[in-house]
């Protein structure tokens, strides 16, 4: 395919795949640009082909939908309407008078750059997991819940033999059942939310019977694998010297404080922990798209406020794979119509719009139930690291806020280096904001990936041996810091 694609879709998860197929079906040429070696994103992450899995669906839900997406993608690639650019890490999307140029780094090493030109863009970059700190959270063996799931689905490996799955949110259910099905002993599922809160929201939740059935399915699997569920509990500490060997859990009171006398130790070599998800917004932010809190703001057609830029899936707010599919479909339809000079007709995506409305309502209700314990920060000790990259302890942030009077995340960052490391504040951002007493804002990064200087300078990097160390990242600094 030599013709320039009209539409670049960034991200090949449920949202990006649905957008690609909807646009291609309307006759638009699409470049599907994704950092992974295989399509699927997080939800449909596939085992590497070299592993020869004959029954990958054993680790999946919604396999029929995945097959439909995968076959559709295959057909559109064969027909020459879709180019699937795998192993392309997009670090910047440039908007100019002739359209858009997508800048990507190639392969896992991410040293060489390529560009893709397009007339319009769909941002379907998904999200990443949020984890609030607690003593011991930097020990090897403590992983994000989604990370454990990603290595299981993609690499067919377990992090250890005995796992505790903890935190809050719907993601903990597939992770606990997935680990158990794959042979791990799941010693406990520790959820800080109150089941009574679920009952209080039952009207809103019951509006989607499919989702209730899904929940019941998980409950049955937890029972089958005999996974003890500790609701209204939290992990207060992870123990170990060179690696995790146990966690201490405790019950929470109605205010979200640890109840005295309820602490107990559970031996485990793995803690899969998560406190919800955060959208990837860096590409949207550098394009100048308006954000709503921590998510990309979109209209009914999934358009951002920057002409020619659509967004779909978890980049626009957390709501799971089905919502990502509906939003992606609408984005693809809308973009295809506008690229071919037609006024989009919302009647052509009425079904997807209905799902979208129902799922957004459902997840808003879930979101009000699944929240980290209100007083989680009381468990932090002075020497708990808040910023994993720069090894900034909690007391440094507390000193910056208390004695030095820092009133915002940026000042705390300048005083403590929290958020200045490799991950550019993606991991510590929520906790630093909370300790500073500020609302959470998206991590502000000039580029979505660390970019070798040679690529930035627009030439083939011949002497560069990977991104420079974090002491000297080309883009590690917030542009607002200078």
């Amino acid at each position, binding site marked *: 395919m030599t013709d320039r694609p009209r539409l670049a879709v960034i991200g090949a998860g449920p949202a990006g795949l649905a957008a690609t197929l909807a646009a291609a079906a309307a006759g638009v040429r699409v470049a599907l640009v994704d*950092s992974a*070696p295989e399509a699927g994103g*997080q939800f449909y992450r596939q*085992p*590497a082909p*070299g*592993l*020869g*899995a*004959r*029954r990958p669906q*054993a*680790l999946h839900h919604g396999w029929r939908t995945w097959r439909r997406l995968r076959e559709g993608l295959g057909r559109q690639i064969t027909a020459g309407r879709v180019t699937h650019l795998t192993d392309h890490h997009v670090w910047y999307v440039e908007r100019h008078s002739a359209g858009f140029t997508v800048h990507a780094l190639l392969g*896992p*090493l991410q040293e060489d750059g390529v560009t893709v030109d397009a007339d319009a863009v769909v941002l379907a970059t998904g999200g*990443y*997991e949020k984890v609030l700190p607690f003593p011991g959270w*930097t*020990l*090897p*063996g*403590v*992983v*994000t819940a*989604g*990370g*454990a799931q*990603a*290595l*299981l689905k*993609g*690499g*067919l*490996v*377990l*992090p*250890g*033999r005995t796992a505790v799955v903890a935190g809050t949110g719907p993601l903990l259910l597939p992770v606990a059942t997935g680990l*158990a099905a*794959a*042979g791990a*002993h*799941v010693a406990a599922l520790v959820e800080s939310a109150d089941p009574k809160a679920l009952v209080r929201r039952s009207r809103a939740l019951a509006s989607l019977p499919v989702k209730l059935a899904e929940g019941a399915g998980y409950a049955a699997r937890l029972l089958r*694998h*005999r996974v*003890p569920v500790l609701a209204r509990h939290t992990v207060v500490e992870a123990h170990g010297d*060179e*690696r995790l060997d146990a966690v201490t859990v405790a019950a929470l009171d109605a205010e979200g404080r640890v109840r005295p006398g309820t602490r107990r130790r559970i031996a485990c070599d793995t803690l899969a922990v998560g406190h919800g998800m955060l959208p990837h917004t860096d590409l949207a932010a550098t394009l100048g798209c308006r954000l709503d809190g921590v998510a990309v703001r979109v209209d009914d057609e999934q358009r951002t406020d920057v002409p020619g830029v659509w967004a779909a899936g978890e980049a626009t707010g957390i709501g799971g794979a089905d919502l990502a599919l509906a939003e992606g479909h609408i984005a693809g339809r809308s973009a295809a119509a506008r690229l071919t000079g037609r006024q989009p007709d919302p009647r052509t995506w009425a079904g997807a719009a209905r799902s979208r409305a129902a799922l957004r309502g459902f997840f808003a209700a879930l979101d009000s139930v699944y929240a980290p314990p209100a007083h989680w920060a009381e468990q932090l000790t002075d020497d708990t690291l808040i910023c*994993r*990259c720069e*090894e900034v302890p909690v007391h440094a942030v507390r000193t910056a806020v208390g004695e030095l009077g820092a009133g915002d995340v940026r000042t705390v960052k300048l005083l403590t280096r929290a958020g200045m*490391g*490799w*991950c550019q504040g*993606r*991991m510590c951002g929520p906790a630093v904001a909370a300790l500073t007493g500020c609302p959470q804002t998206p991590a502000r990064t000039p580029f979505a990936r660390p970019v070798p200087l040679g690529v930035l300078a627009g030439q083939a990097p011949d002497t560069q*041996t*990977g991104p420079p*160390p*974090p002491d000297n990242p080309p883009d590690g600094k917030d542009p607002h810091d200078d």
Partner: protein
Amino acid sequence: MRGERNMNPLKLTDARPGPAFTVTLDGREITALPGQTVAAALWAAGVTSWRGTRGAGRPRGVFCGIGVCFDCLVSLNGRPNQRACLVPVRPGDAIRTQEGTGHDD
């Protein structure tokens, strides 16, 4: 409260991997399967940390599992700062624990 008896992810998914091959971690031989990332191969070998932090020299390994946190940095065939959760393992790879920045400074 056992996990499935004798179950493992390869068995669950009825996997027939291509031939296993050898790589080294700090000179020690480890068996890896084709398609696995460096992190997956190390986990399969029972290794969960392969980096010492720049400040306190504390051990780290996988945290986010998807390339976002940079905790899993490793030295691969002489190149420091590779994300073990993203890079596929290849026959003969020399994986080294990364201390600090991974550069001799």
